[in-house]
C-alpha cells in the first residue's frame, strides 16, 4: 500500500519547489538598499534594549509538558475508536468497560493537573 503515498511525495516535491521559488524570486526581484536602521531590531521606533533571548515564564513550558502527556493518551484512543463499532457488535460491553477504565485514569490525571493549578494561567 506504499504506492498510495506516491502522490503525497509528488505534492511534497511540488510544495518545496513552490516555497523555494517564492524565496528566490523575491530575493532576485526586490531592490537592495540596506541602511543601519532598517537592519536593526524593530522595537516600535525606540532604541532596542538588550537581547531578545531572555527568560520567559515557566507557564509555557508547563503547557508543553501537559500537551505531551495528554496527546500521547489521545493517540491510544485512536486504534480503539477504529475498532469500536465492529467490536461492539461481537463483544458488547467489554470494549466499553475497557475504554472507561482508560478514560477514567486519563480523567483523574486531568483533575490532578487542574487541582495543582497546572491549567490555570495567571
Amino acid at each position, binding site marked *: 500500500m506504499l504506492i498510495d*503515498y506516491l*502522490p503525497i511525495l509528488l505534492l511534497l516535491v511540488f510544495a518545496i519547489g513552490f516555497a523555494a521559488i517564492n524565496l528566490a524570486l523575491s530575493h532576485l526581484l526586490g531592490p537592495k538598499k540596506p541602511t543601519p536602521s532598517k537592519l536593526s531590531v524593530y522595537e516600535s521606533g525606540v532604541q532596542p534594549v538588550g537581547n531578545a533571548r531572555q527568560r520567559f515564564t515557566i507557564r509555557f513550558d508547563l503547557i508543553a509538558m501537559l500537551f505531551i502527556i495528554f496527546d500521547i493518551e489521545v493517540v491510544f484512543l485512536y486504534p480503539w475508536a477504529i475498532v469500536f463499532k465492529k467490536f461492539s457488535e461481537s463483544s458488547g460491553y467489554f470494549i466499553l468497560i475497557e475504554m472507561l477504565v482508560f478514560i477514567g485514569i486519563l480523567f483523574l490525571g486531568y483533575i490532578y493537573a487542574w487541582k495543582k493549578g497546572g491549567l490555570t494561567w495567571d
Partner: protein
Amino acid sequence: MELPLHVLIISSLIKILIVVHVLLIGVMAMILAERKVSGWIQDRHGPNRVGPWGILQPIADGIKFFLKEDLIPDHVDKPIYVLAPAILLVPALIICAVVPFGSSITVAGYEIPLQIADINIGILYVLAITSLGVYGVVLGAWASNNKYSLLGGLRSSAQMISYELTLGLAIIGVLMLSGSLSLREIAIAQGANIWNWNFLIHLPAFLAFTTAAFAETNRLPFDLAEAEQELVAGYHTEYSSMKFAMYFMAEYMNMIVGSAVAVTLFLGGWHLFGLENLGGPFWSGVISIAIFSAKTALFLFVFIWVRWTLPRFRYDQLMNLGWKFLLPVALTSIVVTAIVWIGTQSKLLVGVCNVVAASVVVAIVASTLAMRREPEQIERQEPSFMKGSSSGRT
C-alpha cells in the same frame, strides 16, 4: 479500482496541479472576500479601485510583495530566519493531499477518485502535518531575535498545542461511528441523508472542533499571537516582502484546508440530498466538486464573519476555554457516544445525549470557575492605573 502506475502518476500530477492552483486562487479570493466582507460588516466599501469591484486587488498585492526589498536584518539567525516561512508553507500545502474534494470521475475508462491520495490513515496524516506548522511559527519567532516575535511565537505555540488536543479528541467520536480513519470513507459513511451527518450526531464535538480550528489558524478571537496593540505583528514582526507573504498565505491555506477537513468530517463531504448522483459518471464527479466547494465556502464565510464580530480573548481566557471547557466537552462526547451507542445503537439518541452531557459539563465547569473567581474580583476592584490615567488626562 487499482489504477495502472502510469495512469496513477499522470492523474496525480493533474490533480496536484489543479488542487494547488485552486488553493492559491482560493487564498487570493479569501483575501478579497475578507476585505469585502469586513467592509460590508463595518458599513464601508472595502477595496474597489484595482479592477472592477476591486477584484484585481490580491494580484496587485502579490506583485507588490515580490517587488519589495527582501530584507534580512543583522541580528537574525539567518538560515532559520529564511527557512521558517517555508517550514510553515510546505505543511499548509501538503495537508490538502488527503482531502476528498469530490466522489470520483470517470475519464478515458478509468475511474479516478477526486482526492490526491486516499491513504488509510487520512485523519492522522492531517493531525500530524498540522502539528508541523507549529515549527514554522516557533523557529521564525526565535530566529527573528526580537522581543515581540519571541512573545508572539511562544503564545502562538502554546495556543496551537493546547487546541490540538481538542482537535484530536473531538474527531474520535466521529471515528467511532465511521470505523475508519480514511477521510473518503468517513464522508461516504455520512451519505446523502442530512440526519446522518456528523455535525448533528456529534454537535458538541463539532463546535469544539470548529473552535479549535479557529485557534489553530490564529484567527481573530484567538489571534493573541499577533495582537497588534501589544505585539505589533507577533511572530512575523521582523519579516518583510515575500517571506511575510508566505506566512500570510500559509495562514489562509490552513484556513481553507481546515474548512475542507471540517466539511468532510462533519458536514457530509460532497453529499447533498442525493444531488451528487445526478448525471453520468463524469458529471456526477463535477457536481460533487461543486457541492464540496460550496460547503467549504460557506464554512470560510463563517471564519470571516466570526473574525469581524468577536473581540479578542485575554490569554488566561484562551487557556481556560481550551483546557477547562473544550477538553472535557470533547472527552465527555467520546464517553457518551460509546455508552449510548452500545446501549441503544441509535444515532438520534447519541446526538441528543451528547448535547445534554456537554451542557452539563459546561455548567459544572462554569460554576467551578465562578466559585474560584470571587476573591480575585474583590482584590481587583480598584486597579491603581485607573487613578493615574484619569488624573493625567484632566
